[in-house]
């Protein structure tokens, strides 16, 4: 089994775990974490691609893509966390259970 297939299988496993977590976990914080696990899997796949395509030296394009992707994922995560925090605060004020998902409310 080549190094590339080990890395890419691990990447697919991570994405699968993330998708499972996103749909089964109710807590908003865990949903945000699940999305980050998916992102981690995608970045691992891209980095392992850089190793596979070139024999002598790694391909720089996927590395640049991962760097950009991390910046995008960090900004989105930061934004999502700030939103989760303000929603929790509102829920705490109105004395509903903040640990529960608020999906079905208007």
């Amino acid at each position, binding site marked *: 089994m080549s190094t590339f297939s080990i890395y890419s299988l691990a990447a697919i496993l991570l994405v699968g775990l993330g998708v499972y977590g996103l749909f089964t976990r109710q807590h908003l914080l865990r949903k945000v974490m699940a999305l980050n696990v998916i992102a981690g*899997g995608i970045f691992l796949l891209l980095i392992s691609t850089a190793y596979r*395509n070139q024999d002598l030296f790694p*391909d720089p394009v996927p590395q640049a893509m991962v760097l950009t992707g991390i910046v995008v994922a960090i900004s989105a995560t930061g*934004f999502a966390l700030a939103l989760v925090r303000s929603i929790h605060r509102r829920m705490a004020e109105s004395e509903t259970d903040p640990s529960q998902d608020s999906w079905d409310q208007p």
Partner: protein
Amino acid sequence: MNQVIWVVLLPFVGSVVCLLAHRKAVFALGMAASLGTLIVSVGLVAHVWEHASARVELGGWATPLGIALHLDGLSALFLLLTAVVGVLVGIQAGSYFAQSPELRAMGSRFWPLWLLLWGGLNGVYLCSDVFNAYVLLEISTLAAVGLTILSGSTASLVAGLRYLLAAMFGSFMYLLGVALIYAGTGQLDFLLLSRGVTPQVHTLTAFGLMVFGLLIKSALLPFHFWLPPAHSSAPAPVSAVLSALVVKASFFLLLKIWFVVFESISGGTPGGMPSQLLGILGSLAVFWGSFQAVRQSRLKLLIAYSTVGQLGYLFLIFPILASPDFQGHEALAWGGTIFHLFSHGLAKASLFLAAGCLLQAMGTDDLHAMRDIAGRLPVITFSLGVAGVSLMGLPPSAGFVAKWMLLRAVLASGQWWWAPVIVLGGLLTAAYVFKILAHTFVPSEGEALRLNSVPLVMTLVPLALAILCVLMGFRADEVIALLPAVPHFGTGKNGWEMP
């Protein structure tokens, strides 16, 4: 051809300037950036009219390393729609956010986010590789969520988070597709990919993942759950932009992925399952969205569900163009779809802005409170009616031209079963438009509702949008003529070669 870059750069620069500027200067600076972008966009449409497509490599770097911008008829039309709606919404926002100190603070946050969104959208229309498309789509998503939660109410925060999580998941699925396709072909550019793609397992998986991600972001039926709360809980100018423009940027990218990058896969199986599936989901969206719209009792939610329904029509283009005996009718299908996209964009922006005026005047957007509004706010009611006529698809509006072309395209492709969708969808649309109008004509019982005054500009902008929508119906020939100005658009073979 270097002015292409300004259509992306100008909104971004404007966004940063608005963020740093003094609160009193924000509107003037924002409007200046908007008007500048409108002028550049119109210039680009004129360029496409005369010279067909153009391609600019930024900084002189060639494609695998650098970033290229690709301008063609389709992107020019999207730029134009965004600029027209953008400037009119900006004018509306100027008076909407000037009414109280609280709204003024909101307005100084509106402009940086809106210009960031505008720059991101223009970037999506012009980008020429799958990865930059992802980055620009993410920029527009983050800005759009920021605009959704502008009012800071609990409902808008919850709707914004739901929107953000759904959009992030969609983007990651798209990015996973990008990673797979790069692993397989070593290419990212649309045109280079379209030559290198062969139907193998990883390419098919990448195609599926990218389409899946974009379907979530363009809110096609089972993935529409995030749209109605987000679009209805935002301030009126924001709702107008979200419904008229933002969902369509993902649809634009879907068109490029489907008909350019994976042309050999999606076009290789005539009348194949995937395109039929998109057509079925689109038809279900038309029925479900319109049916939900009829059931709503709040005006903004009704209009938001109407967006879910109207977006469904756009997806009929996939089965129509997949038909094998459809050679020579491409212009009809493309014309109908793009015309629908335009007319819906203008009409929906008009409806949301008019709803914003009503909300301001009445203090509520409950349909049952709208008693005797037709007599007391005639201009706003007239805008609602005119925009509604276009949504229903009655002549001479642009909506009629769009549905007529789609209907002819459906019959020409030999897939008659989509025709009832178009006709019945129009009937359901009529049902919810008349539901709105009927409530405005009910005479008030006892004491009439006290109405707050609405600035004149705010009532005129929705009217201008609605009238533009109808005028487009009279000028159908010119708009259709712009589409074939792109040689063989969508046929893949000739229309997308490097200039």
